[in-house]
């Protein structure tokens, strides 16, 4: 099993394969299953993501009312043609928000790598699909590539907000998505590595400070930021821009930052935005004096 980004890229280069192929083959070995079985499992996850995006774009709200219907606003805004950033970015934002609104409403989603960050990878994937009309196989491969990068993060650092803050969740998701975007756009495994490193660097230090301990504020909007950041990093890497700090060292930095983060900022709902006057008031309104 590969245990670093450097090793993953080496394997892809020496075997002349894409990152997604390396991931699929490893999964077949580890789970002792056929290509078709592994592929079909991922295809089912893709279908869950598609359903969540569709549901959110149709308009959903959480039980508390803190989040909901923002994906609908984004969609209307895109249709108005008045957007400042390009359609690809706006679509990615709309789909990321959509997925996380469904998540906040306790709807069905696929964790990528977590539920709180589940909007980022599908956000950019479905946006890319609208621009480039991907085949279903390309879309399934996109998820294997994201999985490969996330696999290294999970085993060397953390993908848990309670352990490492939001950088470990939306940060990891954004970096995974950036690497997949590069591969889908025809970039080399090295360029995927740079996109990953750039995206994660931009998310370092991000705390997990959910209002009332709910996966709503600021989680839904941070998924939008994670999606945009993934597109930024992917475009930079495809332009030939390289990360000065190697991807594996960025992961290590993220891990160490997580270790030094106070627990108030690691998914306890006791610090950051959760501890603002408005955050406290919302918590009171939702849970009373419990």
């Amino acid at each position, binding site marked *: 099993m590969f245990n670093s980004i450097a090793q993953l890229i080496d394997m892809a280069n020496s075997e002349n394969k894409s990152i997604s192929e390396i991931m699929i083959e490893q999964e077949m070995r*580890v789970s002792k299953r056929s290509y078709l079985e592994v592929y079909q499992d991922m295809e089912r996850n893709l279908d869950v993501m598609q359903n969540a995006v569709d549901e959110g774009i149709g308009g959903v709200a959480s039980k508390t009312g803190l989040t909901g219907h923002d994906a609908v606003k984004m969609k209307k805004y895109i249709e108005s043609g008045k957007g400042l950033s390009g359609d690809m970015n706006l679509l990615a934002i709309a789909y990321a928000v959509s997925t996380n609104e469904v998540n906040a409403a306790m709807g069905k989603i696929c964790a990528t790598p977590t539920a709180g960050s589940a909007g980022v990878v599908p956000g950019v994937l479905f946006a890319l699909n609208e621009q480039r009309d991907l085949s279903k196989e390309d879309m399934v491969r996109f998820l294997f590539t994201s999985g490969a990068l996330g696999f290294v993060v999970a085993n060397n650092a953390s993908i848990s907000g309670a352990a490492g803050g939001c950088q470990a969740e939306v940060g990891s998701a954004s970096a995974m998505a950036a690497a997949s975007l590069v591969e889908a756009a025809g970039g080399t495994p090295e360029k995927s590595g740079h996109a990953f490193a750039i995206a994660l660097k931009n998310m370092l230090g991000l705390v997990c400070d959910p209002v009332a301990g709910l*996966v709503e504020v600021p989680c839904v909007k941070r998924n939008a930021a994670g999606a945009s950041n993934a597109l930024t990093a992917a475009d930079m890497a495809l332009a030939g821009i390289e990360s000065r700090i190697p991807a594996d060292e960025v992961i290590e930095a993220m891990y160490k930052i997580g270790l030094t983060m106070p627990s108030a900022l690691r998914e306890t709902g006791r610090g950051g935005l959760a501890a603002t006057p408005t955050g406290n008031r919302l918590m009171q309104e939702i849970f009373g004096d419990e």
Partner: protein
Amino acid sequence: MKYKSVFDIIGPVMVGPSSSHTAGAARIGLLGRKLFGHTPDHVDIHLYGSFKDTYQGHGTDVALIGGLLGFDTDDSRIIKAKEYADEQNLRTNFILHEEERSHPNTAIVDLLKGDDRLKIEGISIGGGKIELVSINDYEINISGNYHSLLVFHKDTFGTIARVTTVLGNNEINVSQMNVSRKEKGDIALMTIELDEEISEAVIQEVENIDGVERVIEMADD
């Protein structure tokens, strides 16, 4: 390595809102139910750290109850798990602790039915992945890369040899083994990691060994 599959990262398919606090919690409940072997009457659920601070917002309570009722992470019945628990006469009691455990997302689930009792400590390490820390206050040390057998046995001479003889006779190789006990002469726990899957027949054979009280097989789901 803690994470072995790509589907630990892209997955699980689940009811929101949190992979660690909802899906992971459901999996701790499910594991408790599986090890207990049936639906309990009463369960004390102890929450620590981030689980304690945010369980209401994350649906950790309903997910744990749902898991105890056998609902998987993607089962929408989790949302109304408290009502299903009432229907099935499962009583649950949540106890919140200020004390810090080894991991911020820790739940201790204490299952009861008649004289039968099982207590497990589970941690939710991210993305829906969980680890078992202890059973009935016996610390569990499983690296997670192998199939494992947990054998509760009387702490007397010869029991360990009899168990390993059965495994050897069935050509099953032990990769790592660990014995822990609370007091000399009491019940001890053998944790045996194996290189290959073990058949129901061999488990039965181990269960029949003189001095063995209970055998639990741990395999990846």
